[in-house]
């Protein structure tokens, strides 16, 4: 990837307080949702952010837009410090940095017409002179995402899930953004509809020069759409690299297990694949394991390391650097493995 990154995230941290107490609510603990995450997003490219529940991927997306306020770290958009921005500046930034949500049923206000929903960003930012221009832009946007512009005066419940998601995308495009955070945009859709929306996203990226942060748990979709991929586990980034690198030579045991677990719709391959199976359950994010957070479930830790090596995993947080496998992986004993 050449050129300047449009979005630079460094050492991002987000902790959620757990409150308790009766009359006065006190902080009794913290959920470590995101810990020390750094990455770059380049223009006209897609960074796929993968992870399971509790990985913190959705939280990262929201932190970038300051829908959650990060606890620490820095986010720079085209060189400008996002976290230090005052409300007025932030409002202007929202024209360039937008988000599409997962649930097409919950992310649209059921009491507003679809046209009004798409027009809202324009009205909030008083973009366009008068109703005529706004309406024209709304029609243009609806057409852009493949919907009939005549249907702008209908309500969300009259549309299917896939169509609603297109409305959400139209809304995100209204102000001509540079970067769009896509939080699980196709997970809630029927399988046969997902492909249409994925194609639309790719088309729009080419046409409008967009950069995507594509947050998902579905590795198959991520492989299809991303240029770069980053893998998250329990708040930490465990592997990052170009898509082909990560998918053909996964180096972190979690990435290997994750790819191993994703089923492929091909009975012959599916039954012959090598499997890396994880044991146990996700640790609590309010009390993550010391050192490497993955060690409690890591098949390498359990089966291949000596005691001395295991001690290193318990004591030392592994750094996200290239251990000789071609791209950074946060494992002291990273080794590329072909899992597919």
């Amino acid at each position, binding site marked *: 990837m050449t050129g300047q990154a449009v979005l630079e995230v460094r050492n991002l941290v987000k902790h959620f307080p757990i409150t308790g107490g009766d009359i006065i609510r006190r902080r009794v603990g913290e959920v470590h949702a995101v810990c020390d995450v750094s990455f770059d997003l380049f223009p006209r490219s897609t960074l796929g952010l993968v992870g399971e529940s509790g990985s913190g991927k959705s939280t990262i997306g*929201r932190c970038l*837009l300051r*829908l959650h306020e990060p606890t620490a770290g820095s986010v720079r958009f085209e060189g400008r410090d996002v976290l230090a921005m005052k409300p007025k500046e*932030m*409002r202007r930034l*929202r*024209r360039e940095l*937008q*988000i599409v*949500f*997962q*649930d097409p049923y*919950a*992310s*649209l*206000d*059921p*009491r507003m017409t679809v046209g009004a929903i798409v027009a*809202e*960003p324009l009205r*909030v*930012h008083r973009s366009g002179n008068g109703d005529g221009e706004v309406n024209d832009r709304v029609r243009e946007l609806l057409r852009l995402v*493949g*919907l*009939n512009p005549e*249907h702008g*005066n*209908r*309500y969300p*419940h*009259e*549309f*299917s*899930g*896939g*169509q609603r998601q297109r409305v*959400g995308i139209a*809304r995100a495009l209204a102000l001509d953004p540079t970067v769009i955070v896509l939080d699980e945009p196709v997970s809630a859709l*029927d399988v046969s*509809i997902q492909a*249409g929306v994925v*194609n*639309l996203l790719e088309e729009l990226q080419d046409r409008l020069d967009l950069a995507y942060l594509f947050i998902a748990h579905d590795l198959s979709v991520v492989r299809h759409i991303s240029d770069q991929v980053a893998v998250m586990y329990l708040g930490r980034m465990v592997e990052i690299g170009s898509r082909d690198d990560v998918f053909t030579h996964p180096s972190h045991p979690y990435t290997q297990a994750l790819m191993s677990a994703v089923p492929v719709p091909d009975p012959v391959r599916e039954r012959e694949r090598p499997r890396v199976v994880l044991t146990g359950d996700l640790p609590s994010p309010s009390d993550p394991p010391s050192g490497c957070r993955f060690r409690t479930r890591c098949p390498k830790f359990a089966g291949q390391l000596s005691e001395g090596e295991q001690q290193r995993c318990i004591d030392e947080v592994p750094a996200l650097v290239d251990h000789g496998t071609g791209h950074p992986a946060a494992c002291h004993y990273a080794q590329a493995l072909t899992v597919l």
Partner: protein
Amino acid sequence: MLEPRPAPGPLPGAPGPGVPEPGAPDELVEFGVEVRSQWRLVLGRFFRHRLAMASLFLLALLVVVAFLGPHLSRHDYTKPGPDLSQAPSIHHWFGTNELGIDTFAQVQRGAQRSIEVAFLVAFLSTTFGSIVGALAGFYRGWIDTVLMRLTDLFLTIPTLAVLLVVAARYRGSRNSWIPIVLIIAGFTWMPLARLVRGVTLSLREREFVEAARAVGASNARIIFRHILPNSLGPIIVNATLVVAGAILVETALSFLGFGIQPPDVSLGLLISNGVQAANTRWWLFYPPGFFLLLFCLAVNFVGDGLRDAFDPQQTRVRA
């Protein structure tokens, strides 16, 4: 070739047929989609609720009679007449009182005043309660604490006692009904504030509110354009119930002599005047009482119907 086939509105829980996805072949059939706003669906369900519809008609009838009163009967509710304490007859449909004043005219005027008070109270208390609840639920933190403790304070104060004390101040004044309205409204907003706060707390976590924030909408816009419109269901239902409650409170006050003052008239005052004559001159007591009863019943059934219409029981089908 292929003609569009009309389909009824979409099913709950099932994706509706609508616009063909892009890139589709031209022979793709377009299913017609009926424009059905949420309000239409709600109204549809309400119209199907027979008791609520009947009560709505009754309510409309009562209101019309009360407000068109002077045009219906020939008598003035203040003018004494020659026929004293007459039983109901063709000239005086509800008879007359000891001063010869036509009872029907009095009941109409009383009903009109009582209904005015009730609706105004409902409007004021609903507006105030909704705003308090929405602010508390949206901002949380110390705003929530302060507003909710204020609400608790008002809830624990014995309403009737305070009402009596305050009402006593305005006793004998001409436009006694205005302070009465304000006082009653001042003590009926609390349950709605609690309710709206609860609804707001859940709505603010919904993704469409997050989406509005992501677009840069101000807090005021989010509260008034997104949260309150989506809370209208419980608010409207509650408002109808406040109407019934308010009219009863006003009746109680007037009955005790602290509410509407003569020469103005209200149902409570009429009942109060007529209670001693209940056995001998029944026409002074039962008509106003009966009107009150019908009104409250009708309002309550309409409220029930509205509640069902906004929140119907549906057996969802998973396929």
